[in-house]
């Protein structure tokens, strides 16, 4: 049970798994499936993990911590079948306060007007957010 660390909403979590039989790389019958559970044991998201290095039977994905996630602790269960035997691995991670489920701001533009100041922000999820009269 690997601890993957702490993340904020909008981050991308690196998830990797190697399929092995008797400690030697062995391709699974199908793509490994990952299911993320929250602390209440509810499944919040599921993914199929694509191959990253076929000879090494290594599969990897970047999991976007989007609006399905909230601050708290999660477990990821990865299951696959290799050599006709069911296998699994698991990891734990925390989501701490901060961040935005739509991702970080990668670009922005300000419109100065006499009555207000408008901002349009481009988030790395591709979502555009607009705001008025920002303050700190």
């Amino acid at each position, binding site marked *: 049970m690997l601890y993957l660390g702490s993340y904020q909403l909008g981050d991308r979590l690196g998830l990797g798994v190697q399929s092995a039989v008797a400690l030697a790389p062995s391709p699974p019958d199908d793509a490994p499936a990952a299911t993320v*559970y929250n602390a209440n044991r509810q499944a919040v998201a599921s993914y199929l993990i694509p191959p990253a290095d076929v000879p090494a039977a290594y599969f990897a994905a970047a999991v976007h911590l989007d609006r399905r996630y909230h601050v708290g602790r999660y477990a990821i269960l990865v299951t696959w079948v290799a050599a006709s035997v069911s296998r699994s691995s698991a990891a734990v991670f925390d989501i701490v306060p901060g961040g935005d489920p739509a991702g970080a701001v990668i670009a922005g533009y300000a419109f100065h007007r006499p009555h207000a100041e408008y901002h349009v922000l481009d988030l790395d999820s591709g979502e555009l957010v607009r705001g008025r009269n920002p303050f700190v």
Partner: protein
Amino acid sequence: MDFTGYSPLGGQHYDWLLTTDANNVVHTPDELPTYKVYSRDGTELTAAAGTVAAVVDLAGGLFQATVPLLGGSGFDTAERYVLLYAWTESGLPRTKAHVFGVV
């Protein structure tokens, strides 16, 4: 022995147990696993022992334990503890240990 994160004193440590072997092969326990908690010096925190809360995914061999981190049970901040799981599989004893921190 895997590290499974930090949890706050007075709160709960959510921990997950995977009943697999070194080849990631899933093994099904005969019953819900139990756990004991030990401090760094090997002292058992007897009031903290318990049984895993529930099966999360039986086919995947995933179980969850919820450990209340009460000061009266012997937990303290800035300390690490060992969570030792025990269960049987076809009558044979199995164990797995995790380490977690209290903040």
